[in-house]
Structure formats: structure tokens, C-alpha cells
């Protein structure tokens, strides 16, 4: 209903109306952009899986399989025996050991639009990361966050271990 109203106002030639209509138009734009983001672009894919390894998306947990696509906001989860290796769109490479929970909280790789960032939250577990083009093109583009202390980590190849806060 709201969209109908705004489109009507769009064709209204009076300038005073145009002024007021800007707000709803902006809202519609935000909605459209929001919808576009719900259909998020690929952040990477699963390269290898062993044992209990899962992808949690919108609170739905599915067993991870080789070639599965990864998106922003996906959570990589492993159980007592699991591990998983993934390749991200910027050709960076990441792997996790058992009992790990990692959120891909932001992933943007659009060099043409200078959108270059990868933020991961490690809730617990072990992670190995080898940087790719995002870190190369945007020096502060990659960040890993952990519960005890927000760690900004800058380097090319490193391993991170986060103690399980539940233990």
C-alpha cells in the first residue's frame, strides 16, 4: 500500500508534494536495497569437510558439503570431531578445527566499488587464515573479533585459538 502511495506522489507535478514525498521514496529505496541484500552475494565456498561440520544460516543448521556456497552472516560450526576448509571470493583461505563457531559477520569483495572488507567473529575454537586480495587492496580490510578482547589482527598467515567461554 505504501509503495502505491509513493508512486502516485512521484507523478504528482506539484513541487511541495515532491518535497514531502522524498522521505517515503527514500524508505522504498532502503527497502529495495534491503531486499537486494537478503539475496546476498557469494562470500565463498566450502572446499573440504570432515566429521561434524555445519553451516548455520538464518538459524537453520545444515550439514556442510563440499562446494556449498557461503554468504555473509553464515555461521561455520563444528562438533567434537569436525573440521572444514573454505575458500573466500578474494582467494583468501580459511579453515577451522573441532568445537569451533565462526560468524562471517561481513564480507564485501567489490574492488570496482572499493568495497573490500571481511569481518569474522570467532566465538570459540581454532581458526587458520591466509589472506587474499581484500587484505592486499585494503590494509585494514580484514578483522577477526573474539569474545574476550576485540582483536584486530593484521598479517598474512596466522592461527587463532579462542577458549570456549562456556568451559
Amino acid at each position, binding site marked *: 500500500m505504501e509503495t502505491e502511495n509513493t508512486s502516485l506522489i512521484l507523478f504528482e507535478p506539484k513541487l511541495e508534494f515532491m518535497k514531502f514525498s522524498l522521505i517515503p521514496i527514500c524508505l522504498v529505496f532502503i527497502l529495495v536495497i534491503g531486499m537486494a541484500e537478503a539475496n546476498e552475494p557469494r562470500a565463498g*565456498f566450502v572446499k573440504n569437510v570432515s566429521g561434524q561440520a555445519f553451516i548455520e544460516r538464518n538459524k537453520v543448521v545444515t550439514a556442510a558439503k563440499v562446494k556449498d556456497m557461503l554468504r555473509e552472516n553464515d555461521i561455520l560450526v563444528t562438533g567434537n570431531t569436525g573440521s572444514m576448509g573454505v575458500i573466500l571470493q578474494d582467494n583468501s583461505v580459511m579453515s577451522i578445527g573441532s568445537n569451533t563457531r565462526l560468524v562471517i559477520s561481513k564480507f564485501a569483495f567489490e574492488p570496482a566499488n572499493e568495497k573490500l572488507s571481511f569481518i569474522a567473529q570467532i566465538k570459540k575454537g581454532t581458526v*587458520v587464515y591466509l589472506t587474499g586480495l581484500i587484505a592486499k587492496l585494503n590494509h585494514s580490510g580484514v578483522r577477526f573479533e573474539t569474545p574476550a578482547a576485540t582483536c584486530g589482527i593484521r598479517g598474512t598467515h596466522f592461527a587463532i585459538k579462542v577458549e570456549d567461554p562456556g568451559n
Partner: protein
Amino acid sequence: MKNKSLLRIRDIILPLVFLLLLISGCASSTQVVLLPDPDGKVGTLEVSNVKGTQTLNQAWQATVSASMDRIPSEPKLLEEEKVRQVFREALEAEPIPPVSFIIYFRTDRSVLSTESLTLLTKVMDAILSRKSTDIIISGHTDAVGAIDYNHRLSLRRAKAVADILISKGIDRQNIQVTYHGKGNPLVPTPDGRPEPRNRRVEITVR
């Protein structure tokens, strides 16, 4: 009466907050270890929290960030074996990083030279060692010639490379072919200028 109950609440809440801080501060410390790059080089690693930054520059050095109120610990050199043990699962699961190759072409040609065919054996090795299911082949031309013609030429070049890989047994479904004409040049030039470095096909194996 009022004062008394307030006191009681404070008596309970203060130790509880303290206890929670203690738990959250100690329980989930973060250890970060600098690993050598795949080519053996060692970069630097900066680990920072709100209190400050620690810089590591030797392979197998580690720092621990335990809580918000302390800077990450002094870098400490760990034994390589110990690190490999702690991170064994993640290190074993670490994919081989993607690799790219470039094949060059003569003016207006889409036939591969003998040298290029030799390079394709390296491409095959890269695909097989990675068990790659994600091979991206993109064709390009220089800025000589009409736009439409160059689009078709760049596609012919990319397809020529894809066909050879398929003839060597690579599954067609694992290959993505894209063509750019004179777009995305390696060396930007004005229109009409021949540039051998732009007459190419790029292959990325992931």
C-alpha cells in the same frame, strides 16, 4: 525498611557482577600465532585490543589477549611442533590457496603456442592437486579492432583453453568461461594501440 532492602540488593548484585567479569575475562582468552607464508616467507602480525597493539615478526611467535583491560601479552616463541599439535585439525583442513595463470596470444589469433601448451600441464597439475571444482577462464584482447569483434575473439581464446582442459579430462561443469573483449586490460592503453600483454587468457584454479 527501604534502606535495608536496597542494601540487600547491592549485597547480591555487586559480587555477582564481579563474578561475571571474572568468568568472562578469564574463560575466553585469545591466542594468535604467526605462521610462515606458504612460500616460506614470514610476514608481520599485529594483534590489537582496546588497550594496545603487539607486533609479531617471527614464525611460531604467539601472543595472548586475555581481557579488555590488558594489552596482548609480550610475543613468545612457541615450538613449531606444539603449534602444529594445537592447530592440527585446522591446519590439515587448510585448502591449498588458489593460483592464477596467464596465457598470451598473437594478434588476432586464438591458437595456443607450444609454450602455452606446456604451461597448460602446470594448470592441470594445479587442478588435480586441489581437486578443483572451480576453474575460471577469462578471455581478453588488446584495444585494436572493433568492440564486437574483440568480444568474439576473447571468447574464442577462452574457449580454446577450456576445450584443451576438457580434452584432458576436466569436467566441463567445473569450468566457468567469461570473456571481456578489450575490457579489464592488464596494461591500460588508448584505443587502437597493440599491446601483447593484454592479448591473453587468465585461468584461476580454486
